[in-house]
């Protein structure tokens, strides 16, 4: 699968931005800046009005993107127009997928997943779709040949972990801490604990850690604890927010995004070298 292979020998850098934040034009430029900054997979948010898993930073991004007119059909156009080589993962909430109707009036997960796959999306993360409710989405993704990434939380017990790993594809999203998305100033000790538990399972799926990673130093420590990749959202969205007063993309924001991307990627590499010194 292409998503899994995006996690190569080096640890992967997986940035998140909300599509359409702060405008469709600027957002396109910023996603492309992350591509240049070395992203291995890009999680591209399709904004939903009730983002219950998001902290204040991404909530604000979602509001800006909705105000800029982002909708599911425009999201598919947006993905089609992007000039990036990096595999794209659609991150959104289930109601938007469930309500989608294509031109032939086919509806639901099947229609949306196929339309998104046609546009170039290679996988999905759906934070409000636990394994209990995931069957229709899983079937649609299998049928369209794209991945459905499961989220593992610090509260996930062993019985649930097994079920999650059984239906996850592409990678596993390891939620580093309790709570919602948001840039914190430390790295949760529970990440290492979750990664250690995951190592006991027979899975080849790469483990990407997100929630609260904002610096190269964080990325280094997370990869040092055994992660195959780092997912960074709010720290990048903070930069986008600084340029949000204008609809036009600004070079300053694009440069800062690419700079932070490079810092995070370098940090992740440092972390890997600490674990595998022979690879120097």
């Amino acid at each position, binding site marked *: 699968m292409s998503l899994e292979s995006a996690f190569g020998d080096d640890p992967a850098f997986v940035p998140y931005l909300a599509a359409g934040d702060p405008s469709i034009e600027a957002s396109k430029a910023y996603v492309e800046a992350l591509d240049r900054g070395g992203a291995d997979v890009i999680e591209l948010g399709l904004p*939903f*009005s*009730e*983002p*219950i*898993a*998001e*902290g204040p930073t991404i*909530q604000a991004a979602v*509001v800006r993107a*909705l105000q800029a007119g982002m*909708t*599911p*059909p425009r999201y598919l156009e947006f993905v089609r127009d992007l000039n990036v080589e990096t595999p794209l993962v659609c991150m959104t*909430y*289930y*109601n*938007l997928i*469930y*309500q*989608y109707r294509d031109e032939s009036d086919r509806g639901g997960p099947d229609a949306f997943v196929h339309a998104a796959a046609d546009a170039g999306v290679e996988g999905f993360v759906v*934070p*409000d*779709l*636990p*394994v*209990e*409710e995931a069957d229709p989405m899983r079937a649609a993704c299998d049928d369209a040949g794209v991945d459905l990434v*499961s*989220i*593992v*939380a*610090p*509260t*996930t*017990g062993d019985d*649930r972990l097994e079920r*999650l790993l059984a239906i996850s594809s592409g990678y596993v999203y390891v*939620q580093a801490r*309790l*709570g*919602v998305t948001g840039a914190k100033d430390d790295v949760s000790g529970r990440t290492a604990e979750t990664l250690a538990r995951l190592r006991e399972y027979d899975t080849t799926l790469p483990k990407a850690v997100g929630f609260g990673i904002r610096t190269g130093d964080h990325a280094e420590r997370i990869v040092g604890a055994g992660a195959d990749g780092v997912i960074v959202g709010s720290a990048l969205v903070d930069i986008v927010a600084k340029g949000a007063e204008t609809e036009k993309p600004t070079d300053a924001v694009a440069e800062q995004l690419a700079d932070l991307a490079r810092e995070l990627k370098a940090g992740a590499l440092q972390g890997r070298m600490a674990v595998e010194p022979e690879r120097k």
Partner: protein
Amino acid sequence: MSFKTRRSAGDGKFGEYGGQYVPEVLMPALEELTDAYERYVLSNEDGFMDELRERLRDFGGRPTPLGRADRLSERYDTEVYLKREDLLHGGAHKLNNALGQVLLAKYMGKERIVAETGAGQHGTATAMAAAHLDMPCEVYMGRTDINRQRPNVFRMRLNGAEVNPVTVGRGTLKEAISETMRDWAMTVENTHYVIGSVVGPHPFPSMVREFHAVISREARQQFDEQVGGLPDAVLACAGGGSNTMGTFDAFLDDDSVSLYAVEAGGSGLGVNDETGVAPNSASLSTGTDGVLHGARTKILQDPDGQIVESHSVSAGLDYAGVGPQLAHLVDTGRVSPVNVDDNAALAGFHRLSNTEGVIPALETAHAFGFIEENHEDLGDRVVVNVSGRGDKDLETVIEETASHDIENAPDMDVFERMGGL
């Protein structure tokens, strides 16, 4: 088909509705809660239900009376009976659920309570229950609702609860629920989320219904003892649907009893495509199948699936979703979804106040708006649940009555005779 075949927790599905659409971080807590619900609530383990019944009696004032509304009965030539949940401690039915869930949290060993509130009735009930059972409590409340329900904010503070304003969006119940879910995702290991209605992920819709079912169990028995037999129709207002399900539950298998869920028609039905706002809260009457706050149910949404802002003169009905079991009961035809607009609700408020001596909550007033317009179709004997009292709504009623030109409202010229307001 029997509706009573649902006493086990099951999988939380009501037909196609219900389920558990929440982040993975909360799923283990929902599993733990489902287990606790089955053991303590459904099986009375450790005498949980016995203790709850005692506390509802001694602290809450249960049972609440069922009484005949003499003037309304005469006006409509129909026997009208009022189930007086407004007389429950706190002034609304909400304590049935709040006390049940806070007690359950104690049995589960949780150390902290969070809750959302719209009108503030659930927040005050939870704050009261938490003070009564000595649990720390934080309540999330939208900024719009804080402004229009000030007395309830003071009551929560008086009972020792923290009130956290929610400023995103329009600042009503929808945003408050989202924000409480976010708190819970952070604190889930030591905190219980006391959800205020029959909404949200399984087991909340079943569990909250079970705590409120005492309303209809009492009413059914009281009606039989006082009047004989069964009523022809049972009415309850419906926002999220907690008093509705509580009022209907014991009557679900009585085929001769018509059940009417009265929603807020606001200032008009449907969704305004230009503003993207629904000037109503009529999810059962006009909503469509979707997923909101952890459950699949009928919701107010735009064609893309974005949740739209709802509206009602009554803060407690102002919500874009409704309990999944009610959505199912509407689809199967067991419950009739009806609605009345803000004007009819305000007129209903004044009618009950000045003819029966009962000042109802604006939520409840919708049911009295409906009976005024439809009493000829309701049969000979009608029970209406007075879900709450209206003291909290007086400021709103004074303002809205003036702007809506309600003909049966009292003249407030006493202030002018005193020399102005």
